[in-house]
């Protein structure tokens, strides 16, 4: 019987030499770990036939409620949560009359990717902001929308800010190159492609009428082959899809059921 959604189940010969208890603990931690941002969205939305629900069925007949799932998405190791706010948030999104969900294809979320790069041969750090852009063919891709970096805060010798010129970025009509829609699952392993070839910037940079000063300088430096992005170090995702709230998620690598991509910040925002 076909399942209702796309799912790959990989079943392999069990690890040899592992004690039964460790194997069970390993599997439990793996099942509970929020391994990808996609899994975060699935759990937040209480999607059917997820790994955690299927795994949970092995041990209990009580199904996991949406409230329980969303609670499990908060970093439980953080001790200074405003629990009243957390419950208000959970109550709001699980409201039976008007529930709220996260949508991968809703462009109101972004990734901030801390990277190592080289500028004129010297190692530098930068934070690249990436957004999902939906396309006419029903597909989507990640694009670079902004950048923050100390080395891009250029000043004239007299201390005044460097005047930047808005660059013209031609958006290619073919799709030979792009950051594919699941690049995030590999922690943007291919982020170095952005600076690989100055002629290809249009494939990766979002089309905009007005770029920030940092982006203007970044694009100009890329065009002079002065910048080489090396790799991503860490990522924070920010979702602004729930009315009156912003949530930040980051990765917590630890051996516990509360691990993986979890809510690290819950911020109230004006509606």
């Amino acid at each position, binding site marked *: 019987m*076909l*399942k*209702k*959604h*796309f*799912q*790959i*189940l*990989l*079943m*392999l*010969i*069990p*690890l*040899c030499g592992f004690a039964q208890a460790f194997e069970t603990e*390993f*599997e439990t931690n*793996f*099942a509970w770990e929020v*391994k*990808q941002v*996609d*899994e975060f969205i699935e759990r937040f*939305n209480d*999607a*059917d*036939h997820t*790994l955690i629900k299927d*795994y949970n069925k092995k041990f209990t007949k009580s199904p996991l409620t949406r409230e329980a799932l969303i609670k499990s998405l908060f970093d439980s190791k953080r001790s200074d949560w405003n629990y009243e706010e957390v419950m208000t948030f959970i109550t709001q999104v699980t409201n039976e009359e008007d*529930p709220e*969900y996260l*949508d*991968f*294809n809703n462009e109101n979320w972004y990734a901030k990717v801390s990277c190592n790069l080289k500028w004129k041969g010297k190692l530098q750090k930068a934070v690249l902001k990436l957004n999902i852009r*939906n*396309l*006419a*063919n*029903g*597909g*989507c*891709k990640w694009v670079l929308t902004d950048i923050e970096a100390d080395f891009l805060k250029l000043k004239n010798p007299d201390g005044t800010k460097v005047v930047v010129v808005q660059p013209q970025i031609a958006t290619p009509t073919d*799709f030979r190159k*792009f950051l*594919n*829609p*699941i690049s995030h*699952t*590999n*922690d943007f*392993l*291919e982020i170095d492609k952005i600076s690989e070839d100055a002629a290809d910037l249009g494939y990766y940079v979002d089309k905009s009428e007005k770029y920030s000063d940092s982006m203007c300088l970044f694009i100009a430096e890329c065009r002079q082959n002065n910048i080489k992005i090396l*790799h991503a170090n860490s990522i924070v995702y920010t979702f602004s899809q729930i009315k009156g709230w912003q949530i930040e998620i980051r990765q917590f*690598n630890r051996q516990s059921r509360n691990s993986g991509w979890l809510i690290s910040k819950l911020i109230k925002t004006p509606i």
Partner: protein
Amino acid sequence: MKTFYTLTILFFSFTKLAAQDVIYFTGGTKIPGKITEILPDKVKFKNLANPNGPIYSRNTSSVQVAFNSTGDYLVFSQAKPSSDKEKEDFMNGGSKARNYDIIIDKNGAILPVSINDESEGELVANNNGKDVIFPKKDLVFLIRKNGNHQIFSGTDEALPYLSIDKPKINMILTQGSPKETASETPSAAPQRQAETEERKVEEVKPAVAHDDNDYVVPDMALYGSKALQKTNEFAGYLQTITSINTKREAATKSINMACGLFLTEDARVEVSNIRTDTKNKYKIRDYLNRLLIKSGQYDKLIIEYANISYASKFKKGPDGNYYGSVTFVQKFQGFVDGNLVYGDQTKRNMTVVLKHYEKAVNGENVSGWDVFLDDIGVVETKKL
């Protein structure tokens, strides 16, 4: 003696997409969806990229038009709202036999035709007994006899035609054959005589970037066995490459075959080292060559996989291919004289790509999907 546990069972379970609607929004976006309810001020629908996900709701002011799988459509106009009957007919869109395709050109002509051939820039169709070439740049939209549709000019430009011409289009759709619609005027767009005898396609047509309605969305369950085959093959090649009994030529051949499983040889494998706490990226061939060299350092090598993993849903990319990701755990142990000299447990994410292809087989165009592996990243590495 080296040991390698191969992958045993790989299940892909997907859904065959139900008859889908296509919903066009203001701002130029569209999604494949299934409209579940149409209210005076809201449209509710499921996103078929997440068929078990929530029901979404959008104000009708942000929806331009929706097509169902039979080619019926509904224009969402504040000035001229659809009647309840029109909404009901749209929602109930059952299978309707159509004998022809309908094209609307920029002169406003509505033409029932039979499309015989198509390329990136034009259609060749039989119009009233005559084969005519229609340049796509002169067309506004097309509704095919199989219910698929294509908007050529952009939704904003097509909307007035869709709205004003709906009664005529409905009339034509309910009639029997093109010959019974002689009242329609032929398009004023330039026409050229096409060859009336049947053409033989000798060359392989390139895979044209169609509107997403023209690509049949892959029935993922059918490709489960192909994905299993590719993954098992890769595991088998790794076994051959790392085995101390393998001769150099056989190992090289296995490296070549393994690379063939990947989308391109630019696919990269991220490698971490617990000693240096760094991550490096290697193209797949370089990775496999390094593995061959590294395996020579040990007289026993064990690579194992955990019996639980997670897979994301597939997402469509700009190129029309579908991209998914699998998270799994790999254990690597190298022994010298029976002693473990290096061991790590690595959590990895592997990209899987469903790629569309078209080719000529015995003079007929055949299209389908194939499965490829792509980048393999590292989430976390721990020392054993």
